[in-house]
């Protein structure tokens, strides 16, 4: 098998190119332990198996970002046969800066000038010159227009067959080369050791003799003193010089500032007077589409679930009648929950794919950054937060747009405070029962409270997890292009499978636990169930909130499964114990209950999404955190509002 690592800057069309080369057999997963996407594909070409791995897009091999580390480690440790270095033909200089570093891995390299169809007609590159200067193979290609495939694949076979083409890396100035000569590793490692790269020093430094390492350090200091610059700056200068030489010697024509449609559109969209309207309009449209498309499906899945339940009820279990409710409440409900999110997740990833592929996502992040920055967040946090007000599950899954794990962490743990639509029935029911006149005021209040809690949680967790204040944006705005629909579909499908794999276990475990709480011991009535027992135990705690009835507390348990079931189960419990809500709950208690039930743990599916994105530890943290904050908020606000309103004689 030939192992081909595909390396290049972000937005040069690496993924599209692999898709084109392998007839769309790309698989999307994650790198172990991190949330950076891992894309790979296999192809059998002329009897040879070729494995393509799409390494994260990078600009440099410095140790500052996760993507750079992944790419660097892969090239150093995974026995790569060939590097497929993809460049955007309109941005050759920037691409070559990375190429200059890629050559230092001393792996046979094939340079692909992708998007060749987009360069102006007066520009050309002399591939022969280029190949000789770098001792690599080079091809012009366009995944979009569909040319270059045969040539690339044939060159891969050729490079493998001949396996001698060692790239010509940059020869630096004499003083630097003299030092590098004394180091025993691959060129890349030697250069990084000289630059004083922390990771590389830690790993390869100990393999040097102590006196050699000391010598290296003193030589570095000497050079830096002489040039009054850090050594990495000197090396960068040499790289830039090399890039300019290569461009001068192998290209003709001019690539300067190609003004295209993208510039014209950006001129309008990024105009500060118009941009807020675009942003709001866009986000509105995004949600409209999501719920318009998914609502019928979700209903449909509900029907299928009902169908299974009714089929089940017709089966005679005889002695094992108790099994029936177990199957219904754990398995059928579990599968129902699992699949009810599938359409939503599919459509959202589809839209994400389209937005990212088309270049729109980067603009949304940029436009939102203007105000998101004020609350200490990156612009891309807008999407998960707004999504949360529809449904928390995709919101949590979409936190992958955050660039660092810690930012993702605090955002994912704050999202359960965004008021998803499933919580509205609780507010409506209690509003009607207790605060008829102020029903809409109550709803508005809970929405404002939700926004406040989300921001408070972000702020608070930022302190707890010591997240540095978010840095300013530094993002590339890729050219607009039509997304490749077949790829986007496959991407969304892979993501749905990934979701199902990640959340199934925790959904069933939670349902199992809840089943026992609500149905143990068997054949007992509600009053004597384990759930009622636990609820009664919790009474002293909840009496702080002026909630003095175990029935009301019991209804919170099914709320773990889905918030909308709080009302249904409350009604059922009340009818079984033959009382009415007004008799067992005060207005103050009702207010506290609405607040508490709106914000304690959003639901099993959200929890499973948190577990999928962050792991069990943080899922448990989320439960404890949201319950505590919900309780505290319910206590403070029910008391304050009750005091104020009784003074005004409104209660």
């Amino acid at each position, binding site marked *: 098998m030939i192992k081909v690592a595909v390396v290049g800057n972000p*937005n040069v069309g690496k993924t599209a190119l692999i898709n084109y080369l392998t007839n769309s057999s790309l698989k999307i997963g994650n790198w172990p332990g991190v949330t950076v996407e891992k894309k790979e594909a296999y192809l059998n070409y002329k009897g040879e198996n070729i494995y393509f791995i799409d390494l994260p897009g*990078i*600009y*440099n091999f*410095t140790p*500052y970002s996760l993507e750079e580390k992944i790419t660097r480690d892969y090239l150093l440790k995974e026995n790569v046969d060939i590097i497929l270095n993809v460049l*955007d033909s*309109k*941005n*050759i*200089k*920037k691409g070559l*800066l*990375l190429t200059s570093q890629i050559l230092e891995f001393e792996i046979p390299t094939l340079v692909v000038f992708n998007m060749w169809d987009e360069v102006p007609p007066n520009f050309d590159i002399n591939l022969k010159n280029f190949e000789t200067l770098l001792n690599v193979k080079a091809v012009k290609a366009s995944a979009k227009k569909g040319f270059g495939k045969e040539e690339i694949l044939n060159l891969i076979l050729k490079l493998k067959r001949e396996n001698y083409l060692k790239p010509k890396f940059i020869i630096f100035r004499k003083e630097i080369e003299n030092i590098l000569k004394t180091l025993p590793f691959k060129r890349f490692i030697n250069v990084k050791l000289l630059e004083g790269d922390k990771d590389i020093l830690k790993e390869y430094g100990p393999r040097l003799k102590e006196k050699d390492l000391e010598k290296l350090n003193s030589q570095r200091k000497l050079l830096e003193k002489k040039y009054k610059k*850090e050594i*990495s*700056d000197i090396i*960068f*200068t040499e790289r*830039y010089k090399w890039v300019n030489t290569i461009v001068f010697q192998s290209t003709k024509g001019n*690539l*300067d*500032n*190609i003004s295209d449609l*993208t*510039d014209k559109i*950006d001129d309008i969209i*990024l105009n*500060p007077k118009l941009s807020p309207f675009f942003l709001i309009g866009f986000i509105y449209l995004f949600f409209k589409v999501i719920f318009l498309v998914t609502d019928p499906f979700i209903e449909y899945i509900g029907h299928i679930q009902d169908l299974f339940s009714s089929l089940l009820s017709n089966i005679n279990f005889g002695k094992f009648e108790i099994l029936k409710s177990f199957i219904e409440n754990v398995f059928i409900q579990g599968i129902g929950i699992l699949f009810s999110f599938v359409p939503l997740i599919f459509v959202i990833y589809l839209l994400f794919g389209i937005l990212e592929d088309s270049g729109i996502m*980067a603009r949304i992040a*940029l436009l939102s*950054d*203007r105000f998101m*920055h004020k609350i200490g967040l990156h612009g891309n946090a807008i999407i998960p937060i707004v999504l949360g007000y529809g449904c928390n599950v995709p919101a949590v899954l979409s936190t992958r747009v955050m660039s660092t794990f810690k930012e993702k962490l605090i955002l994912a743990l704050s999202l359960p405070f965004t008021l998803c639509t499933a919580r509205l029935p609780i507010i409506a029911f209690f509003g009607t029962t207790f605060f008829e006149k102020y029903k809409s005021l109550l709803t508005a209040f809970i929405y404002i409270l939700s926004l406040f809690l989300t921001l408070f949680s972000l702020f608070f967790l930022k302190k707890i997890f010591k997240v540095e204040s978010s*840095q*300013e*944006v*530094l*993002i*590339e*705005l*890729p*050219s607009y292009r039509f997304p490749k629909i077949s790829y986007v579909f496959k991407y969304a499908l892979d993501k749905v499978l990934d979701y199902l794999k990640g959340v199934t276990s925790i959904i069933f475990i939670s349902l199992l636990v809840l089943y026992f709480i609500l149905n143990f011991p068997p054949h007992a009535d509600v009053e004597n169930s384990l759930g009622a027992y636990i609820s009664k135990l919790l009474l002293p705690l909840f009496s702080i909130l002026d909630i003095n009835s175990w029935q009301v507390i019991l209804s919170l348990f099914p709320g773990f499964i889905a918030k909308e079931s709080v009302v249904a189960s409350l009604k059922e419990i009340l009818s079984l114990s033959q009382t009415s809500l007004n008799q067992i709950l005060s207005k103050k208690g009702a207010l506290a209950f609405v607040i508490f039930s709106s914000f304690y743990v959003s639901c099993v599916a959200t929890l499973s999404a948190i577990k999928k994105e962050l792991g069990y530890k943080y899922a448990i943290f989320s439960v404890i955190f949201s319950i505590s904050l919900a309780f505290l908020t319910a206590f403070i606000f029910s008391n304050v509002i009750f005091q104020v309103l009784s003074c005004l004689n409104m209660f």
Partner: protein
Amino acid sequence: MKIKYLSQIPSGKEVIIKDVLGCQGFKHRLYGLGIFPGEKVLVFKNDRGPIILKVGNTKLALGRGQAQKILVEEL
């Protein structure tokens, strides 16, 4: 020619990068993106919020604070 901060350059002007200040990590990120002493850059938009540059044929958005660490010369 007078050296200015990138943040002071109005939309539509072309500049030559003179120097990048700040820590090593920041400098290297910008170098990788094509912002390097001696390179030409177009200020595509500079009004409110992040500044948008055109480096080669790539558009880049960077915060005002970062733009204040980049010294340039107007062309």
